[in-house]
């Protein structure tokens, strides 16, 4: 590591710590690096512009954001909740189970955990609190924990970003997330059921069976969304980026024409909000890629690979080490930054050790999503706190059993790659 690079890291750490936007902290540190190493400072701008302009793959990001926002504005979430209430409301801790199931279905339509927690999660917290059987902390914890599954079940924005830095196929990454997502859901449902029994949280009034077809029919267009999306990608009809646009169009048609719950005013708000989020995310992505460029010119990944090789780590040892590291960083860093800047550092070593890139990608994304509920910096904690006013410390306290369950799921996924790779292999993945 050169002195210039060390100074740049210091600048980055200080700027981020005093609260500068992460994107600008990265640009500033890149400029500092170029100045100190005597290079042309316009390289930072060049990398920033080119990394945004060159990647067709990244277009999936604004499109998935738009799709999620449309679904949150239309009454799609309400109808899904009705459906899930009819399906699992009859069990102990019914409303909490409803939230987990609705997150699972919603995750098949949106690629974003935050969209899940802020949209459908907010409604289900209100529903839980209205029953009077749930503490606010518990309701918030269920929603935050179940939202982590959103980007594991396809589609997934974090996996698009991983595909970008690792050159792996988004299609196979998406498929690799299906079983892990279901596993995480099962763990969360089991924990909920355990807590519900211990606290004796009653079930909801069961929805009569004869109403079930009607409720299902009302939710059907929304339930079809993941099917259309996945059939499009795996039937070979559309690329994942195109699927994102089709998903947004489908959400628009369902919310606007079928459910008639979308006004021009709300549509404008959807586009403006999506434009803002896209810009903010685009800046983080672009600046993270400038930083990547510097890391690459400094040969950091290769030096790290040599260092790791000298330690004679086994596959398992390496995975355990990186997972603990990502979890620790997840308490402090934004998931986008970890995926774009930290994970690429370890890719050469992972390759050298013969670790499958799809497996490594999926478990790393699961890891980063768990980082969204670990304090002090946990995006989902902020979102639930902000939309409902439930104090973060209550969510964290009640969320502990869920965190343990998710960590258990992660451990199983790390040491049993077959769980990730089985489905992609059925679709022709040769890894």
């Amino acid at each position, binding site marked *: 590591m050169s002195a210039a690079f060390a100074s740049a890291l210091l600048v980055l750490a200080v700027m981020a710590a005093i609260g500068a936007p992460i994107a600008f902290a990265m640009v500033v540190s890149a400029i500092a690096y170029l100045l100190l190493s005597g290079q042309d*400072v316009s390289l930072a701008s060049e990398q920033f512009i080119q990394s945004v302009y060159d990647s067709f793959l990244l277009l999936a990001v604004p499109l998935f954001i738009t799709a999620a926002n449309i679904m949150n504005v239309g009454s799609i979430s309400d109808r899904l909740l009705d459906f899930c209430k009819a399906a699992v409301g009859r069990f102990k801790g019914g409303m909490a189970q409803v939230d987990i199931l609705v997150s699972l279905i919603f995750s098949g339509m949106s690629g*974003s955990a935050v969209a899940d927690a802020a949209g459908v999660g907010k409604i289900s917290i209100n529903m839980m609190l209205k029953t009077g059987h749930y503490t606010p902390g518990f309701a918030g914890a269920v929603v935050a924990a179940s939202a982590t599954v959103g980007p594991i079940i396809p589609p997934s924005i974090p996996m698009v970003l991983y595909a970008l830095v690792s050159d792996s196929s988004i299609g196979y990454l998406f498929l690799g997330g299906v079983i892990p997502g279901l596993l995480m859901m099962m763990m969360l449902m089991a924990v909920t059921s355990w807590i519900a029994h211990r606290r004796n949280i009653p079930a909801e009034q069961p929805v009569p069976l004869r109403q079930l077809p009607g409720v299902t029919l009302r939710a059907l267009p929304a339930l079809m969304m993941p099917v259309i999306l996945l059939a499009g990608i795996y039937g070979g009809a559309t690329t994942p980026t195109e699927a994102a646009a089709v998903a947004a169009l489908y959400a628009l048609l369902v919310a606007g024409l079928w459910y008639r719950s979308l006004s021009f005013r709300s549509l404008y708000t959807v586009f403006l909000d999506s434009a803002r*989020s896209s810009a903010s995310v685009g800046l983080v992505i672009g600046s993270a890629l400038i930083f990547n460029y510097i890391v690459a010119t400094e040969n950091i990944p290769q030096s790290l690979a040599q260092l790791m090789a000298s330690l004679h780590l086994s596959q398992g040892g390496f995975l355990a080490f990186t997972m603990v590291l990502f979890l620790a960083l997840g308490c402090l860093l934004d998931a986008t930054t970890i995926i774009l800047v930290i994970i690429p550092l370890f890719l050469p070593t992972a390759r050298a050790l013969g670790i499958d890139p799809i497996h490594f990608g999926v478990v790393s994304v699961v890891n980063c999503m768990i980082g969204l509920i670990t304090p002090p910096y946990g995006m989902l904690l902020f979102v639930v706190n*902000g939309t409902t006013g439930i104090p973060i410390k209550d969510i964290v306290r009640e969320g502990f059993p869920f965190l343990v369950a998710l960590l258990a799921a992660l451990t199983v996924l790390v040491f049993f790659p077959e769980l990730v790779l089985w489905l992609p292999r059925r679709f022709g993945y040769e890894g």
Partner: protein
Amino acid sequence: MTQLFAGLRRMTDAAAAAMLAALFGVFLVQIAARYILNVPMGWTVEVCLTLWLWLVFWGGAFCLRPSDHVRFDVLYLSVKRPTQRVFGAVAAFVIIVAFAISFLPTLDYVSFYKIKRSGTLGIRMHYVFSIYLLFMLAIMARYGQLLFRFLAGRPDVEGKVTAYERHDEGSIT
């Protein structure tokens, strides 16, 4: 003055929303052309990428309040107001200096692209990339204004927004 700014703000917001809507629309045209009409069109890809580039930097320049960015503000929020002001002033100052240092070299870089035309539409590339210069200028002006606020000891806007408002934009994960 405030009204003028509010009007400008509405216009820049509307432009950003329009860019996103156009990006979405052109993408659909591309899909329709490829799968329904069976005539792949090259221009759609170029238009989408240009709109995406402009959306990111236009939005970054005019539509994101400092509080909309992805930030690690745990430390910032845990210190007292006067310290927050020092933090904010240092961050703003460093951002302005760094952007100012790289502005002229970037201007050179962007103008160099006037010799190159885009792949399908033949637009001169320095027009496409010029949005980054506008972005740099806007950020320097924005942080200049913030720096002034911090130095003048005026209450900063940051303190009043809730955690959600600080984090609702900018997270995709």
